[in-house]
């Protein structure tokens, strides 16, 4: 019998007034997973997270945590979940230590537990010797780390982060993501993270869901998502002459080649057997080789492809509806 997901969303629908914000969203998140929810701004990512932590109640559907509906287990969920908001969620006028003490108390920790935890946490988030600095005086990267520390002071099983890398420079982003990986590994915390920066998420998350237009388009591991879009590899080939007429005709005859086309001065081949195809190409034309690359399609391409397909489907459905009428 398959193990039940650690966190499960079942057909969750959220409506604000007359606005449908989430439509029939279902997700499965496993224990210790780093689960990314990617989507454009306004796609419903934050609403989805707020429903996950029980801050918002869905109009339809349910959220299960360890197979229990969070509606019936609100106190436990609050104790087991940590959260960091996009803009940070701490008191800028309190010091680092005061913030941790306050939120530790709010998370039902005793004074001694808090005092034991603070040095360990500060070390983890690399804020040692900063405990007496007022939070507003910290750099943006430090503030982000303080926010994470506030979110994990009570040793939650789940840490939810709403676009944590937003507004950070590439170096700080990299540092923050490596910190989250460390927390995931050392503290065995399930991480749920939202972002619209797909390239970063591609290398960071173990599983992902693509949300668009209030609904989940796809979910799975990065490779699963890429496979969903295409099982082909992409061979990009460029020569000095940039004349590929004969080569294209020969390659197209192969059964394992899906498609061949030119992109600027390059020849692009889509195939399930990249090694065999590459051997043939090199045998035919190896002189004047400028560039050669073999790729799986990027997550960006997967996302755009899914969104484009949805748009096409919508247009098709609209057309069908018109015809029916």
């Amino acid at each position, binding site marked *: 019998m398959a193990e039940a997901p650690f966190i499960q969303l079942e057909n969750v629908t959220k409506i604000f007034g007359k606005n449908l914000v989430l439509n029939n969203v279902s997700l499965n998140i496993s224990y210790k997973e780093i689960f990314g929810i990617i989507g454009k701004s306004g796609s419903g990512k934050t609403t989805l997270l707020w429903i996950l932590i029980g801050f918002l109640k869905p109009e339809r559907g349910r959220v299960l945590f360890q197979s229990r509906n969070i509606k019936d287990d609100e106190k436990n969920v609050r104790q087991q979940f940590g959260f960091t908001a996009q803009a940070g*969620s701490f*008191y800028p006028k*309190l010091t680092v230590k005061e913030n941790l003490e*306050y939120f530790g108390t*709010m998370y039902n920790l005793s004074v001694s537990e808090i005092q034991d935890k603070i040095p360990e946490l500060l070390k983890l988030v690399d804020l040692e010797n900063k405990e007496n600095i007022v939070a507003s005086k910290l750099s943006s990267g430090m503030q982000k780390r303080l926010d994470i520390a506030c979110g994990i002071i009570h040793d939650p099983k789940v840490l939810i982060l709403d676009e944590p890398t937003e507004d950070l420079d590439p170096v700080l982003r990299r540092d923050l993501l490596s910190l989250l990986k460390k927390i995931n590994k050392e503290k065995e915390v399930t991480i749920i993270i939202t972002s619209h920066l797909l390239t970063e998420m591609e290398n960071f998350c173990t599983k992902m869901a693509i949300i668009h237009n209030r609904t989940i388009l796809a979910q799975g591991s990065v490779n699963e998502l890429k496979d969903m879009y295409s099982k082909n590899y992409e061979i990009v080939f460029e020569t000095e002459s940039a004349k590929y007429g004969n080569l294209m005709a020969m390659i197209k005859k192969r059964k394992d080649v899906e498609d061949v086309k030119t992109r600027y001065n390059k020849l692009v081949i889509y195939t399930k057997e990249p090694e065999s195809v590459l051997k043939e190409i090199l045998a035919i034309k190896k002189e004047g080789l400028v560039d050669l690359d073999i790729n799986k399609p990027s997550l960006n391409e997967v996302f755009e492809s899914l969104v484009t397909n949805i748009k096409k489907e919508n247009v098709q459905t609209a057309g069908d509806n018109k015809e029916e009428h």
Partner: protein
Amino acid sequence: MFKLLEIIKKNIRLLIRSKSSALIVLLGPLALILLISMAFNTSSLYDIKIGTYSDAYSTLSENLIAQLNQDEFKLTKLDSLDRCVNSIKTGDYHVCIVFPPDLNTNSEGKLDIYVDKTRVNIVWLILNSISSRISTKSTELSTALTNTLLNSLENANSKLDSSSILQISTSLSDIKTKINSLTANINALGSSNISEIKEEIEDIESENNLTLSALSDLVSSLESSINVVTGTDMESISADLSSGISNVNSVRENVDAVVSDINSIQIKEVSKIVSPISTEIKPVVSEETTHLNYTFPTLLVLVLLFAGLLIGSTTTVEEKSSKAYFRNFITPTTETTQLIGNYLSNLIIIAVQVIIIFIVMISITNMTIPKDILTNMVIALLIITSVFILLGMLLGYLFKTGETSNLASVTVACILLFFSNTILPTETLPTAVRGIVNFNPFIIGEKVLKELLIFNSNLEGISASLYYLLGMVVILIILTYLARQLTKRWI
């Protein structure tokens, strides 16, 4: 409990670290009460400017001006009636007194006093003070006049002696008796002796054959004179004397009646005649009480009103607009605990203010608070403060920004203040409005503190008012909780 302490600690740290808020919230009311206590710690009026005008000032007018021109009043003679009246409109003078020309105690002219009734909070105070001074002078004059009158009466009484009149009457009666006796004697003399003389004369004439006609004529003349005296004159004198005696008796009776009337006046003290019904205004509190003592309960509620509303709304908006507000919603700490923590933080801040206010008051005015009302005071202050804090918190939750919530707080405070006894007595309002206004927490709070601080009332005496306030507290707690829930939508 531990969580509540941490919330309170956090809120006070946040307030103190927001310097401008701390300055306004903590020092504002304290500065206010300090200045007020120093300014109003007196029982007098100061610098009341009075303009006077008269076509011709008399001695009495000058005396009245001299009487008024003391201490708090500054009198200036103005050159025209129009200027005098207009000076009130322009605010140069508080009162204009117009004396009739050549005012004296015999003249019928009256003093016209012009006042600006739009200055409702002071006009009656000034009028009362002026009336009291003029009344003093008027009484002084009445006393002098009555004194003269009484002296005259006393003098008349002492000189109106009926015994001397009685003596006159007796003397006249004696005279009358003597005249009657004289008349009888003369009559006796005339009727017998004259006849004998005449017979003797006739005998002599017959004996001596002489004619003594001259003598006979003389006797006849004498007889006729005696007859005239006894017959007409003496009777007339006797009748006049009888009439005189009767008149004298009548005068005596009148004098007796006047004396009796004068003696029947029982009150002969000048002060009692000038003011037969004496009134004495007896305050129910000590005479030494200053304006500040009277107004302290109002001032205290005023501070609680503004401080409670502003602190309540400011801290709530600060909390609401804080980055950490969202995290508070997702911790296992209940919203009720958060709400109670925020309320207690505000309560502590205001408690500190109230303690400082009392220290200032006690040190400046020597005010004492009896130990037996101390507990009642604490209970009353706690309930009154809670109403205003919760009202402030409610506004803080209902309005999105600090500016709008502060504006709402000041507006609500002003409404509560306008519809209280502080600016206009509520008795001036229509009955229907007064019915609503009587539920104004400012009015109820002021009443409770007045009864406690000025009349040293016990808890039973203010229990009805406290129940009203407690009812408001319960309603406000529910509304504040609901408003906090509402703010979730705005995150």
